[in-house]
């Protein structure tokens, strides 16, 4: 395991700050496209993480934090969509607009608002080269990004001079 050395804002190139910002904004860009099923934003985050994870630890941290924090939110939102569909299709089990449903809806709306607010804060911090930790998800993302061996992607040698 390499020693954990956190990059400081002045040490982080502008492009990396942009990539880290994009990791959070990706969700907003794709969430509306995927409605009513909250899946597209998650897929986009996975793809984004896959392609930029080897840029730097800083970018990796923010994109991973964005990705893993979206997982439970997407699951909870998906449950609400399925539950609502069941009510409209008049299923017997979970087929009622009862107090449990309304309570779930209200709490999920609140949770989504809180998540959006914190994501915007994190996006702003990332753009300024700052680390910002979500509760629970921040620790996991940090462990993965800074406490595991990581080598930034070196360009592979493919172009060679003609053979003599």
């Amino acid at each position, binding site marked *: 395991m390499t020693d954990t050395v956190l990059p400081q804002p002045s040490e982080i190139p502008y492009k990396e700050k942009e990539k880290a910002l994009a990791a959070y904004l990706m969700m907003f860009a794709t969430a509306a496209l995927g409605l009513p099923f909250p899946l597209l934003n998650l897929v986009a985050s996975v793809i984004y993480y896959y392609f930029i994870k080897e840029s730097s630890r800083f970018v990796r941290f923010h994109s991973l934090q964005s990705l893993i924090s979206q997982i439970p939110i997407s699951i909870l939102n998906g449950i609400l969509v399925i539950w609502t569909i069941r009510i409209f299709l008049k299923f017997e089990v979970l*087929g*009622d607009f009862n*107090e449990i449903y309304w*309570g779930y809806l209200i*709490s999920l709306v609140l*949770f989504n608002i809180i998540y959006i607010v914190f994501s915007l804060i994190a996006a702003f911090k990332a753009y300024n080269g700052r680390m910002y930790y979500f509760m*629970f998800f921040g620790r996991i993302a940090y462990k993965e990004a800074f406490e595991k061996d990581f080598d930034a992607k070196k360009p592979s040698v493919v172009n060679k001079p003609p053979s003599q």
Partner: protein
Amino acid sequence: MKIYRDLAILLLFFSGIWVLSSLYFSGNDSENLKVLNKHQREQLASYLDDQFKEGKTVYYNPVVDSAVMIILDRLHHETPDSLAYKITLLESEEVNAFATLEGRIYVYTGLIKKCESPEMLAAVLAHEMGHIKKEHLIERLTNEIGFTLLLSVLTGGDPVMISELGKTAVSMHFNREQEREADDFGRALLIKNNIDPIRFAQFMMIMKREHGNHNSFAFINTHPEMEERILTTTNFKKPDQFKEDLFKMNWERVKEAINSQI
């Protein structure tokens, strides 16, 4: 470890908000149910009466009527309450029965024809009385359209809105929990009146057997989860001293009367 502490806080926060919100909504509803006064309930029962009778013929036959009254009297006699139950028979091959409120039960003649004994009809009526006692219709209406709108329609008196309200009520089905409550009430009422609750299971078995027949479909459609309910009723433990007291009536004569008139 701090990571688990964070996870616990998040889970507690979400579930806490969920529970509090749900309690808020359930508290509101139960208060609202008490606010619908006697006059409004009668008004709603009357509107629904018009809806249920629309396009149908009310069935009159002295033999069938007196048989139904004997069954109702027995069910009501042992467990008297302030409610005056009123059963309306409607001419239809459809096999179904509906309970609304203020004691009103509607039974299609098709259902009576399918009952092989007066005890079977008593079991169906006991179940419907359960829906009335537990006020399931108001509960459903409140869930479907909201209490504020329900009250507004009743107090506003707009005929179009009232008609729509009636159509909503007629098309609604009771949910699984309500059916279970009505089953529990019905079984207890039958036991008190020395009628074996197995009669209800027998009736549902007949319906299941004839599933696919257009006439029986309506009852199955509006009373789902029949297998589970048949099982629950079949496994219901009767008191040790229980002894069924059969109705002393010629049920074949009742069925003949119904078949000859329709």
